[in-house]
Each structure stands twice: as C-alpha cells, then as structure tokens.
C-alpha cells in the first residue's frame, strides 16, 4: 500500500514533456513527437503501468459511440427527436432507435413518447464528424421522471463515480437519493436530500485535483 498523499495532485500543462517513448507509452491526453511524450492538456498527470496520461481539468464533451448520456429533448421532428446532450453538437434520436412498436407517422404524434423538455438516459449509437445519433435500445436507457439536473465538467465524471462506483454509492447511501450520471457531465438526482447531494457533487467538481477527496466528502455528508 502506498503512503497516503496529501495536497494537490501533480498538474501537467500543455507542451510539457512527460517522458521518453522508450520507457513509457502515450495514454489519453498526450501525443508523441520525436520520441517524446508530450501533454495536450492542462490536467492531472496519471501513470498507470507503462502508460502516461493527462486527464483534462476543463473542456467540452466529445461524444463517443457506446457511452451513456443524459439529454434533454429540444424539438420533436417528423421521424425523431433533437436532443441537447451538453456538447458542441446537437444529437438526433430516430424513431426506429427509440420505439419498438409499429408507428404510422402520419397518424401518431411523436410527442406521446417523448415531448419537448423530457429528460432521457440514452446511448450514443454513432458520432461521426459532428453528426451524433442516439439510441434507446440499451437495457438501462429510459425516460427520467422528476428529479433535478446538475452539470459538472465532463472530464471529471470518472472522479465522481469513483473506483467501481465507490464515490457515487457513498453519496447515494448518505443522502438517500437516486443518482444517474451521464458521461456528458449531466447528473440526474431524485430523492430525499437532493440539496445535500448537489453540494457534494459540486464539491467533487471543484476539488477533483486534491488528494483525500473521499474523506472530505464523507465528512461533508455526515454533518
């Protein structure tokens, strides 16, 4: 077991030379040039195995196929829905990816399935050149009713979830809430002590670069 560290995690800046190609492999958030591994972002430096990677501390969400996101329906079209997924690009949920039964689009209004303002938990089906397609075919995909939405920095979602969901389970237990986290940095919360959970989530967003965050959150939630 490594000795417990305190203070700020090691921060890398863009253009920082992190290591040599012979010793390490370039991970996420880095690139290689002339046999050297260089950081792309201002972010937290992490070394796991031979890989060096940099987790950015800011930035927008770039959709990747297979990821789950939380989106808000912004428009109902003829054969699908336009969804805001907190990313630079709009995404589209087509009818065939959303509903199983046969629908005669001439007779049925699509807003009986999803209407403007509805919140959905969906999967990214494809994302090419800024054209993002969503799908509701996954087992966990559904419409989210009630609840509150909170936005955090997308790159900090893994920190919020923690190792095997340790952090998010801690918040769920202590506040008695149901929480769903989209990879796009949108968090849906519903339950008793929603306000307390929001405070904890905001704190994780702000202080993700500091060691001993779990202890701090435990303390915050126990009060």
């Amino acid at each position, binding site marked *: 077991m490594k000795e417990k560290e305190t*203070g*700020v995690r090691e*921060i890398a*800046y*863009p*253009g920082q*030379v992190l290591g040599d190609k012979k010793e390490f492999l370039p991970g996420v*958030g880095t*690139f290689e*040039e002339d046999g050297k591994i*260089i950081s*792309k*972002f*201002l*972010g937290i430096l992490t070394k796991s195995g031979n890989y060096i990677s940099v987790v*950015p*501390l*800011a*930035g*927008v969400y*770039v959709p990747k196929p297979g990821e789950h996101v939380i989106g808000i329906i912004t428009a109902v079209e003829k054969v699908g829905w336009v969804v805001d997924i907190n990313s*630079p*690009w*709009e995404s589209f949920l087509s009818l065939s990816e959303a509903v199983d039964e046969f629908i005669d689009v001439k007779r049925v209004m699509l807003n009986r399935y999803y209407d403007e303002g509805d919140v959905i938990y969906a999967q990214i089906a494809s994302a090419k*050149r*800024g054209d993002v397609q969503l799908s509701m075919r996954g087992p966990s995909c559904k419409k989210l009713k009630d609840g509150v939405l909170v936005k955090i*920095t997308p*790159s900090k979602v893994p920190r919020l979830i923690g190792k095997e969901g340790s952090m998010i389970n801690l918040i769920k237990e202590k506040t008695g809430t149901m929480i769903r986290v989209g990879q796009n940095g949108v968090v849906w919360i519903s339950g008793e002590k929603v306000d307390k959970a929001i405070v904890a989530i905001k704190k994780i967003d702000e202080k993700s*670069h*500091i060691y001993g965050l779990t202890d701090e959150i435990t303390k915050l939630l126990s009060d």
Partner: protein
Amino acid sequence: MVKIKGIELIKDGKRLDGRKPFETREVEMKVGIIPNANGSAMVRFGKTTAIAAVYGPRLLLPKHLQEMDKAIIQCRYNMAPFSTDERIKPGTSRREMEISKVVRLALEPVLFLENYPKTTIDVYIEIIQADGSTRVTSVNAASLALADAGIPMKDLVVALSGGKINGQLILDLNGIEDNNSEADVPMAFMPNKKHITLLQMDGELKHEEISKLINEMFKAGEIIYKKQIEALKNRYSE
C-alpha cells in the same frame, strides 16, 4: 502618438523607466478570472493589460462558415475606449482588424482543431490599458485562456516584443519607446521547439541585428514561459 524630441530614450545603458536594454517589464499573469467563459486569463506587462476569454468549442452558425473536418478560430482584439491617453473611438478600426487576424494566426499552429468539426473557438481579447506591445500581451493572454478552456494544444505560445532605439537593441517596448523607435519587432513562438508563429517588423534593422534580437527574445521568452506555467498551476492550487 506622442513623439518626444530632445529627450534621450536610452542613457548610460539605462532606459527611461530604469530598465536595462534586455530587461522586460514586471509581468503578472492570472488564469480563470471570468466564471462564465470556458477559459480566461489576464496578462499585464508593466502598464499594458490584456484580458482574454475563450468560449467553445461551440457549434458554428451560420452553417456555411463551418469546416467539415476541423474547428475554426474566431478572434477579436479590442481596445477599450479608455485604454489610451486620448480616448479612442469604439468600434473595430483597421488596426484592430489586423491584430485580430495576426493573433489568430499566431495561435492556430498550436491547437489540435481536428477533434472538433463544425465548431468554432471564440477568443475575445480586451485591452483595458495600453502602453506598448499590446499584441504580444494579447497572444500571451489568449494562450493561457485556451489552456484553461481545456482545448488540446501542442504547446503554449510565448510572445515578446523587441526593437531598437538610438542604435541600441531593446526588449519589451513601452508606449513612448514604441512611438519613437527605429524598429519594432513583435514575435510569438512555441517554446518547446522554438518555432516562430508570429514575426512582424516595423522599421529598419540590419541583418545581424535581427538575428541577435531574435536570440535575445528567445532567451527572455523562457522567463515568460515559466511565468505562464506558474500561472496555470496556481489556477489549481488549494
């Protein structure tokens, strides 16, 4: 433009403000000053102060401006009406349009734009106090703001101005020196590989002089580079 006659701008190796020829002014840098922007920074060289704010990457509209395979940068350099001794008319002047473009071109080579098709990265630079070398101050501020916004970059951009007064090469010109100089050379570069992204010259310099000046600017740029790194790390201190 204040032209001073009869005053020696450089005397016994000291300039009007007491600096040595190759000494820069006091530099102050702060990152993350505008909460509503994706990234922001303030850079001060002596009295010259620039504030940069970065918004995006965000969807670019109208659609015909979109690039299908990369993001574009839109840059605006603006001098506040109260930034100079004499009030300047609000609105974009010819000079401001030129500097907006030059700053954009200085930043473009360091960004990985291919990750964000159809989008724009908006860089807004406000000069709230001008005392010479405003374009290099803007480049420094924009470089920090882009890093703060979490946009992938190959390197930071360090910028510095050089020039010549009374036959003596100098660095980091202030307002009076700028207006009375024999030559004025703003330069921006990527410190890792020493690639120059911006080099302009107003005035006349000899062949040897320009190479000497560029070398001196690379040397002094290291100090500014360290300040940039320090400012970025301070953003995420406790």
